């Protein structure tokens, strides 16, 4: 319908289509775009413009959220190249990864059962550093070696790690009150 909606999210913010990005530039571009279309700017405008502003602002926020998160950015880059990451359907993962997952789960359960918030916090920060390492690998697979199959596996792995992090967060919140 409009040029903005047919552009991909990278084009929208004037970024090159790759995994590695300057997060400050992304944030600045988002702020500038969000400022231009925010519904507050159109509060006294005709209804048509109000509706349009709501759609555009939603779109700009969606684009930002997608590019900001490494997992979502990776998934999005793959989808632009026609690769479905099959996160819901493809559950076959390397054995060592699955073993590591089980160990994580046990550690989280143990810390939760002994109401040890500090242990959970420590697990969370360890997990986050694992995530960062995997994100760097994903960037390499997408930007340098262009190994899309490997990248899809990494996206699925990242999804697992993200779920673990959420579990830790939920456990901490439950313990805090």
């Amino acid at each position, binding site marked *: 319908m409009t040029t903005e909606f047919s552009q991909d999210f990278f084009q929208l913010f004037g970024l090159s289509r790759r995994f590695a990005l300057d997060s400050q530039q992304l944030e600045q571009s988002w702020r500038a775009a*969000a400022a*231009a279309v925010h519904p507050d700017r159109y509060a*006294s*405008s*005709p209804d048509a413009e109000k509706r349009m502003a709501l759609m*555009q602002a939603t779109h700009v*926020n969606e684009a930002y*959220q997608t590019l900001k998160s490494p997992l979502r950015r990776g998934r999005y880059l793959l989808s632009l190249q026609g690769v479905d990451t099959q996160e819901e359907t493809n559950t076959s993962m390397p054995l060592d990864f699955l073993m590591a997952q089980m160990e994580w789960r046990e550690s989280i359960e143990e810390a939760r059962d002994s109401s040890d918030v500090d242990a959970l916090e420590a697990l969370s920060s360890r997990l986050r550093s694992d995530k960062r390492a995997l994100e760097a690998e994903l960037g390499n697979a997408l930007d340098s070696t262009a190994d899309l199959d490997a990248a899809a596996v990494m996206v699925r792995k990242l999804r697992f790690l993200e779920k673990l992090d959420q579990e830790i967060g939920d456990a901490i919140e439950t313990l805090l009150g």
Partner: protein
Amino acid sequence: MALLQIAEPGLSAAPHQHRLAVGIDLGTTNSLVATVRSGATTVLADEFGRSLLPSVVRYQDGGQVTVGYDAQREQNHDPHNTITSVKRFMGRGLSDIKDAGSLPYRFVDAPGMVQLHTVAGVKSPVEVSADILRTLAQRAAATLGGELTGAVITVPAYFDDAQRQATKDAARLAGLTVLRLLNEPTAAAIAYGLDNGAEGTYVVYDLGGGTFDISILKLTRGVFEVLSTSGDSALGGDDFDHRVYCWILEQADLHGLSAQDTRLLLTRAREAKEALTEHSDTRITAILSDGNAVDLTLDQDTFRQITKTLVDKTLLPVRKALRDADISAGDVKGVVMVGGATRMPHIQKAVADFFGQPPLTNLDPDKVVALGAAIQANVLAGNKGEDEWLLLDVIPLSLGIETMGGLTEKIIPRNSTIPVARAQEFTTFKDGQTAMSIHVLQGERELVADCRSLAQFVLRGIPPMVAGAARIRITFQVDADGLLAVSAREMTSGVEASIEVKPSYGLSDDAISQMLSDSLAHVQDDIEARKLREAIVDADSLRDATLAALRIDGDLLTAEETSAIQLVLQQLEQAIASQTTLQVNQATHRLNKATEDFAARRMDRNIQRALKGQKISEL
């Protein structure tokens, strides 16, 4: 139009007169109205010079309604009909109100929202709140000498969709045009940030009469970005009063009090709490209806002890908000204190200890929210301020739907920047299934039973197919007020089934109109005259906006398109001249339709200009 004036400095829109817009802090204990006048933001006082309006409404036999100090004075001897802290009941069912038993009201367990039985009939919290808002609107109209264009109403950041919807309904019922629902801590941040030129990460700790909010904001060059928000929509100064009240009962060994005595002791408890802000101890005296006297002394230490769990309770949401924002207490540049309850010395100390710095208390915690709302209202009404600033707020609680086994699937996570939309696809479970039930929920918990049910609707007209073949796409859209709209449609077939739902607590437009015409303050003729006036105001502003748009971005249209719009503009003029509500509304609608495409093109140009400006500034 403000934006276009920036884009093309030589071609400013037609100067319009200053529009009267107000910010309203609809508080649990007190409410305020503020506005921007000749560049200065001020709270508007009543004829006795009082800024605060106690959020107390008294209903009398014969339909007389008293609001504010006069109602507050009567609350001890007319507790059933004098409603205080009604905000706690907004968008809430009877089962949500934990201390209903110790409150002096006759609750009616109505579906959706609890109601209150008074001598003037059953009142919903929406109606009671509307009476407070109406009083403030009248004060503003009288002080400012004109009709209000609109109002920004503040709500606790942690209010869920039902509570927000109820607040918006109350404003509509009071005859106000709601420019925006604004989160209270965000309003405070605007007032504080603009006043102090603050930059960096700030925390707003907002403990009001009945609600607690914590918001973490990043302030950068005029952008107020909320990073995360958390809170407890049933924790506030009232709970401190209640602890003191329970302490009185225990110390004086009182049981089975009448509604009058309960209200009297709650009032004494509040006075004691306030006295302890300045003094190390305070005396509590009261004569009960049976002639017995209460005479006790409460000191700071005891007060601190009996309310310690409440203070600790506020620190949990603080931790959650920090986690969600992914920052630590040490990253925070300043903590802004909002809400009368933050005057309590032990609250200030707890916050200082937690953040390792004394909180910022250099603004009036009672007024800062209303002031921020007024600043926002001024901008939204189209009165451009000197500074350009922008607010990016978030949704406080996750939104999701019920899936198999009574579990919730989150669709929009909490702390997403609004406006936000997310679509999710679902499929049928049985062969030939033609309908699907959708249950919309808000909250963080896994079980449906632990989340708040917002709406339940059935999507019909799905073409019969084998199980799993239909693709039903459900879209959640949260607008800039934080309000949700859900739509659903079937994707595979040519047949399209779609539905728009409103949260179950929301009142329909018809219900609002009905309540409006039922209200004694409006005679039928007034309503008609008012409708015409409103229609013409809308038509005028649409015409002005369209003319300005044509002047500035007319090059985006072909000659044919321009003349088509001009034709509809002429029709609008004729409709206005006819002084017929229906004709004016129809013409306005046609002009809105005719300019839709134009609006889209202008919006694109705006984004491109914004991003271009961005790149130039980087060089």
